[in-house]
């Protein structure tokens, strides 16, 4: 009896320790009226939060763990993965201790952290619900791992870290990516998007400049080209309206990964009943085009 009581106390202490350790690199981001969102000091001088909570790109401030409020500069946003990056002066607070989300399994205890005011960090408690491989968010972003938990993402917790029971940070929590579930953008994806936003201010998206519609053909199925952007990659490759690409949307999206810009893909195309191969050089989607284009 004494044993069970002391071990549950030990678990409680461990969770509070994890919150204390991780929250040393967690800030409140004031980039919208009233309620701040939460941000993680991902690398020195770089704060990550969720894109949807950054409503203003000027006059942004962040609250540090010691309560001090300092100005931050907007670097860029990626709607596809729901991430935004800010710059703060280097050395402002501790840099996040990042973990490897691949070690998390369903049932592992996890915490979500938030910083909403000057009253210290807050925590929500739960378990990893499901994990899996690469997936594409409805906003278009490619996310390296599926990482879902039963955590409650309270108002202002968006952009906060998923923390394991040792205090390591495994990603950025987004309530908006797959409502109503708490979804975490894993460390690898966040780091990739951070690097791209720091380098060019946006995340390039693969694009061939053609709209397609699934059709049934003698060969099984394919995608019928219903519009082609002038001077886009599809047009340059000589694809024509009415061509049927022998593939599925899933296969095509697989080819059009975020790192595929500039690579050449060979498409099987049925034109006037004859199958041929057409090479398309994957381009970069013009910015400001499409949901994920900003």
């Amino acid at each position, binding site marked *: *009896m004494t044993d069970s009581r002391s071990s549950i*106390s030990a678990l409680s202490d461990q969770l509070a320790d994890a919150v204390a350790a991780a929250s040393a690199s967690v800030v409140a981001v004031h980039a919208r009226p009233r309620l701040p969102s939460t941000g993680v000091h991902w690398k020195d001088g770089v704060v990550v939060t969720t894109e949807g909570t950054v409503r203003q790109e000027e006059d942004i401030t962040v609250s540090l763990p010691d309560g001090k409020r300092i100005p931050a500069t907007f670097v860029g946003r990626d709607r596809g993965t729901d991430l935004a990056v800010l710059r703060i002066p280097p050395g402002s607070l501790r840099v996040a201790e990042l973990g490897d989300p691949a070690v998390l399994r369903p049932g592992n205890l996890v915490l979500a952290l938030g910083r909403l005011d000057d009253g210290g960090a807050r*925590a*929500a408690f739960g378990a990893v619900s499901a994990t899996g491989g690469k997936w594409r968010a409805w906003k278009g972003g490619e996310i390296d791992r599926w990482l879902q938990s039963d955590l409650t993402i309270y*108002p202002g917790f968006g952009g906060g870290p998923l923390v394991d029971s040792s205090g390591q940070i495994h990603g950025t929590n987004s309530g908006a990516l797959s409502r109503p579930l708490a979804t975490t953008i894993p460390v690898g994806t966040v780091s990739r998007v951070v690097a791209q936003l720091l380098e060019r201010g946006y995340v390039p998206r693969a694009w061939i400049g053609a709209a397609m519609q699934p059709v049934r053909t003698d060969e099984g199925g394919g995608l019928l080209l219903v519009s082609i952007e002038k001077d886009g990659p599809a047009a340059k490759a000589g694809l024509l309206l009415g061509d049927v690409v022998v593939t599925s949307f899933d296969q095509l999206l697989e080819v059009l990964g975020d790192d595929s810009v500039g690579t050449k893909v060979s498409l099987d195309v049925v034109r006037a009943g004859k199958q041929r191969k057409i090479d398309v050089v994957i381009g970069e989607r013009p910015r400001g085009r499409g949901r994920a284009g900003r």
Partner: protein
Amino acid sequence: MPSGLFLGDAAARLRASVVAIVDGGHGAGFAWRGDFFVTSAHVVSSQKAVLVTSDGRAVEATVVGRDVDRDIALLHAPDARVPAVTCGDPYALRPGALVFAVGHPLGVRDAVSVGVFQAVRAVPLGFGMAERRPRRGRSPFIPWVQADVRLAPGNSGGPIADVEGNVIGVAAMIVSGLALAVPAPELEGLLSKS
């Protein structure tokens, strides 16, 4: 590592002190000391109430004190013979510490829900509380024990406790999913006034 018992011992002790309030209101309450019970003011609407103990006895109680602004009521039930709770200090808890609630959510008797402590302070802006005109017993500007614990109607007036089973607050309401409770250290002052 924690044993399979988890919170079993602390929960069993606390559940023995929790009652259901079934007449003159609906909700939970707990034995505070002697024959006196604490609940939420919004749970007891009249001067009389019937308490059902965890061993199934129905006993009569009289409302002897009420603080509507703090949403706390004190009941006297001389025949209850229920062990009193021990009180803990929410101000000593760190965020992330385990806490649990006992109540009757949606009518499920003496149900335990587990979560973690967040803060004792005023409710932050953006939780849909400060924005509304403050009603009696619902001021966002006074300190609340705030915890990530799932509550439902029927938890009102019941205890929220630390991992040892010491009561740190009286469950009062849910705001944007967050559990709010009246801090246990305030009970002394509130109840001595009433």
